[in-house]
């Protein structure tokens, strides 16, 4: 028997998810795709309707309220909007001068006119995922949808149901792509609620090497949503560096998931740099699936105003002799908020695991907040797991030291803030990326500091 309470709840749920459901029915009619993709999309929308958007009652979303996203109208971008975007309008973005291949996506749609691939070794593919689904199923089907789960994440489910495109990067065994591959995502949203569902698949086969940069930027000041999912597979002995720079509009919402699987003796370095968005949530879900591998999850969030930057990490140690290190630093000004949730799971077979986690937060104002939540679940007995978190202000003693060395108060502050960011930036291995990122962050710190000084 259905109680009144259940009825109300159902009605509520239907009202919340019906726009998504209706949009999906429309979208499905137009999509011409292989059956395995259609099935995944259907499963995606079903899971989404079951799960609904997360609330503060959801343990994994305790500190980040996505109600503002739920309130937005749902406007997935189903048609290409790239006509108005020119190479010139992209020239001022970070990494614009970076050598190497670059794919550009406008509101989640591949824009070939703005994209180019260069110096790709034999067998390496850097292309649109939509195209790869049609033409390279043998390389796509074994991986796509296998790592990012729709049944436990509403946003991944929604992405799976609605994604139009994204990047497909395939590096065959033993090949090295020496220049970074840049994926540039531009939002041109004119209306609130405009949603780009980006889906990427990166497959680095055994003993291959590649550096991938995901760069989220905007030509918009609307309250749009980027909901992207990247699946990353690093084969045995593969060496992969992955960096996501999020520099969305201050009005925008940014939800991304990097779901990754690492093979034996691989070496993977991921960076998440969060500068923009009113609310951003970055999920990094890693499955350490081979022995003797090493992975580093590195991250920096720099927020001001009322921004929220949330990082949610799962490091799943399934095999023995693996090292994982997480380093996340947050620099929080004004009334902004940083959230760090790091779960380390050490399964019974994962003996000799060495898992480290550090989250440091620098509060630049009395009203900034940081929430940090380590979560260690250890089912093996011969392991080393450490975690540490700090929340503090600029070191007064260090400021005095710098001042006593002729350096003015404002410069001293900036130097210390920059050095705090520098701890993270210096881990970026790809030199041109690191240098440009450093310049960008330094400039942003300077801007924020000028605002602070200006307010006084």
């Amino acid at each position: 028997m259905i109680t009144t309470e259940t009825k109300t709840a159902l009605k509520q749920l239907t009202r919340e998810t019906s726009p998504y459901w209706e949009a999906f029915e429309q979208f499905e009619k137009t999509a011409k795709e292989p059956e395995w993709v259609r099935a995944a999309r259907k499963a995606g929308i079903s899971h989404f309707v079951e799960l609904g958007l997360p609330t503060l009652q959801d343990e994994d979303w305790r500190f980040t309220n996505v109600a503002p996203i739920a309130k937005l109208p749902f406007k997935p971008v189903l048609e290409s909007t790239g006509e108005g975007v020119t190479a010139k309008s992209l020239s001022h973005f970070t990494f614009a001068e970076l050598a190497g291949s670059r794919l550009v996506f406008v509101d989640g749609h591949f824009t070939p006119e703005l994209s180019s691939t260069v110096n790709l070794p034999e067998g390496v593919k850097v292309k649109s995922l939509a195209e790869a689904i049609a033409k390279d199923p043998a390389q796509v089907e074994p991986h796509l949808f296998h790592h990012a789960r729709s049944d436990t994440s509403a946003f991944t489910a929604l992405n799976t149901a609605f994604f139009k495109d994204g990047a497909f990067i395939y590096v065959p065994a033993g090949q090295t792509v020496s220049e970074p591959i840049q994926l540039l995502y531009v939002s041109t949203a004119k209306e609130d609620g405009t949603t780009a569902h980006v889906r990427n698949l990166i497959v680095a086969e055994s003993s291959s090497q590649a550096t991938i940069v995901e760069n989220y930027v905007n030509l918009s000041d609307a309250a749009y949503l980027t909901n992207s999912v990247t699946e990353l597979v690093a084969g045995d002995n593969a060496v992969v560096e992955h960096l996501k720079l999020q520099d969305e509009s201050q009005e925008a919402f940014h939800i991304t998931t990097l779901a990754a699987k690492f093979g034996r003796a691989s070496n993977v370095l991921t960076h998440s740099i969060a500068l923009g968005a009113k609310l951003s949530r970055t999920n990094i879900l890693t499955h350490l699936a081979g022995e003797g591998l090493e992975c580093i999850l590195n991250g920096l969030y720099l927020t001001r105003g009322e921004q929220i930057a949330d990082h949610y990490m799962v490091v799943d140690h399934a095999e023995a002799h693996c090292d994982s290190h997480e380093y996340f630093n947050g620099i929080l000004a004004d009334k902004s908020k940083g959230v760090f949730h790091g779960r380390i799971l050490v399964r019974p077979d994962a003996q000799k695991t060495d898992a480290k986690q550090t989250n440091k937060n620098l509060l630049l104002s009395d009203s900034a907040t940081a929430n940090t939540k380590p979560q260690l679940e250890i089912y093996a007995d011969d392991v080393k797991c450490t975690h540490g978190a700090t929340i503090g202000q600029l070191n007064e003693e260090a400021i005095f030291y710098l001042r006593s060395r002729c350096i003015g108060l404002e410069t001293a502050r900036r130097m210390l803030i920059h050095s705090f960011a520098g701890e993270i930036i210096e881990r970026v291995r790809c030199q041109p990326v690191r240098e440009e990122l450093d310049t960008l962050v330094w400039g942003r710190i300077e801007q924020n500091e000028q605002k602070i000084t200006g307010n006084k």
Partner: protein
Amino acid sequence: MTQPILTIKNLSAGVEGREILKGINLTIRPGEVHAIMGPNGSGKSTLASILAGRDDYNITGGEVVYCDQDLLELESEDRAREGVFLAFQYPVEIPGVNSTYFLKTAYNEIRKHHDQPELDAVEFLKFVRERMKILDVPEDFLKRPVNHGFSGGEKKRNEIFQMAVLDPKLAILDETDSGLDIDALQIVATGVNRLKRQDNAQLVITHYQRLLNFIVPDYVHVLMDGRIVRTGGKELALELEENGYESIIPGAVVPA
């Protein structure tokens, strides 16, 4: 007589209502090395901190004139730009700030302050390498983050290296000998002596006489309970070493 570099007149200061300095008088002229000795808690480090501009203290009386300027009116960075240098007792580790960048910024602040053109990276490196030679400073001091991961001895040496780069008119060495073994002490003292000139001055603050075997002072002042109770030549340090602080003022309460 030449114009003094520093004149302290009847300086009193304290924290939270507790008086630490109770009327200090001291005059330092170019070319002079002064040592201030005293037991723990006598106010030595407070004096050094106040001269460098640490604002944890309330100045309750007196004045400090530095090269015809009211020193206490200046911000600490301006004092440094005008040539006051404090070698810290506990140099601060600043991870993430590259030493070369730090030194270049500091040095160029002085240049700007004196309306001189700033040195670019190449010019600065050339200049700083010369200074390094004078002090036999290892090359990696430039590459490491400021004091980060330095041993106690390396930190003190780095202070003297910074002093060599910034070339102060008045260098204040706050217990530079503390925590140093005899070899490190000798290296640091040699560095300080090489930087001594007829137009600058050094104020050496120390608890022990042993540093003064290497840095020979022109004047030794004994600071006790916030006052300079005796002033003499370098032989006063030896007398203190032999007889202890209690011999200076019989009956005085000397904190351990």
